[in-house]
């Protein structure tokens, strides 16, 4: 009897908690969209300066590391492709492979994962610390909306920064592949460039960019959600920052799968 109650109680608690979490996430999404797109039209204003500052922080300052990683990944991808394609004597198709995969898949994914580590964690830590030191309460008592003041600037900056970074990352990744293929494998530069241009369609860019846009939403909202969940002191901030990065990467892969499936046909 007690085992039965235990099982039912356990499942019930888990499902209830999941439902509460879902409800809180819906409220967060609703609030964020409301304060980003609807309230500014009603004359409530947007914190542009803060959004620009965050854009610099998330976007411009991430450029060196995103560029470096994308360049290296491009090179690695080219070498692996050459290894496979050499058997068929099709080395010139390395350009197609690297180009399409970079634009459709790896550039959005690598950028998103880097931004999760770099900016998603920073969002959680910032909001979490503000929560611990009662700064969020202070905003509310002043009659200032925490979503408007803290979430919206980050949200705007993120959804604008990540597609830009993705495009630059894709170009650098293709250049990384070019560098390896031309200087290491010894393919003609013109062949590589021509094949790249021929193989990449607008549709590929559309896939990559729409993906990265949704990755940006995931990174920002997970970061914010985990930040507001912080309880206790410094330990809580650390715990939730870890959790933010893990959740974010998991959801990014999940969103990636869904989008790849949608654009597969």
């Amino acid at each position, binding site marked *: 009897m007690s085992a039965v109650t235990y099982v039912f109680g356990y499942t019930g608690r888990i499902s209830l908690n999941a439902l509460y979490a879902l409800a809180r996430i819906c409220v967060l999404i609703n609030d964020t969209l409301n304060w980003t797109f609807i309230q500014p039209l009603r004359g409530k204003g947007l914190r542009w300066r803060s959004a620009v500052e965050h854009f610099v922080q998330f976007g411009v300052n991430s450029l060196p590391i995103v560029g470096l990683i994308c360049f290296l990944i491009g090179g690695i991808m080219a070498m692996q492709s050459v290894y496979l394609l050499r058997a068929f004597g099709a080395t010139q198709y390395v350009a197609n492979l690297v180009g399409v995969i970079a634009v459709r898949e790896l550039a959005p994914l690598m950028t998103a994962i880097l931004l999760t580590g770099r900016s998603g964690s920073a969002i959680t830590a910032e909001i979490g610390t503000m929560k611990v*030191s*009662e*700064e969020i*309460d202070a905003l*509310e*008592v*002043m*009659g*200032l909306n925490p979503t408007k003041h803290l979430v919206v600037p980050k949200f705007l900056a993120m959804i604008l920064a990540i597609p830009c970074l993705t495009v630059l990352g894709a170009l650098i990744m293709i250049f990384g592949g070019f560098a390896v293929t031309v200087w290491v494998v010894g393919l003609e530069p013109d062949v590589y460039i021509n094949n790249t241009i021929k193989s990449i369609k607008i549709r590929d860019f559309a896939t990559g960019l729409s993906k990265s846009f949704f990755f940006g939403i995931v990174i920002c909202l997970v970061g914010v959600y985990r930040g507001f969940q912080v309880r206790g002191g410094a330990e809580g901030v650390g715990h939730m920052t870890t959790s933010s990065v893990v959740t974010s990467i998991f959801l990014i892969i999940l969103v990636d799968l869904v989008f790849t499936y949608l654009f597969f046909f």
Partner: protein
Amino acid sequence: MSYVADPIIEVRDLVVRYGDRTVLDGVNFTVNRGETFVILGGSGCGKSTLLRNLVGLMRPYSGSIRINGQDITTMSDQERVEVRKKLGMCFQASALFNSMSVGDNVALPLREHTALEESTIDIMTKIKLELVGLGGFENYLPSELSGGMKKRAGLARAMAMDPEIIFYDEPSAGLDPIVAAGLDALIRKMQQTFNLTSVVVTHEMASVRLIADRVVMLLAGRVVGLGTLDELQQSEHPFVKQFFERRPDDESDNREEFIRSLTGQDND
């Protein structure tokens, strides 16, 4: 000092629960306009929870809180923003925004809630900082200030919108006696200069004696004493007496029980 009874905050049958645990249980009191009202009690008696309810950071389980006649427990977010423009709050750890300078902290509510020119806001910020004795510190970051200065800056920020009521959460916690006394004097000065209503949560008897007009005393979520300090000192309630006499809990009765709880034989 004498007052015309003019209630500005009315708390009726306030019940607050965290899950199954009742933290405040039927609290009733009124704060009159222009007085310094102290919420007194031991640690964990629910005084911080009461304060969070008064400023609307938490919603009670039942009961009502009226500020200027409006019940803040049932109003919409929009209406609450309007009420909050007339409230100021000083947090225990001052809760200054660490990413902004002291001046920007004070200017923030003015920039967001008023259509004043930046030059006017600048002047007002300077006036508020001067008022709390922090003139010339507007370009410092909160991390560059000492604990007492942070509290003063927090007070300047709370005063920015010229509020009617100001709430203080443990104003002298973590400060040395001299700085704490300075803050008490400041609380008194604010109240007298601007006819501010002040609600102070504290457990420091020394500062209660200096600033309090009336006191409410809480024990385990219930009101055990309400009135002026003199009235409370006449109280026959054992906890109130113990609190004022600064006596520890009687341990002798519990010793046997304590040993039993250690050996795990308390159920026999």
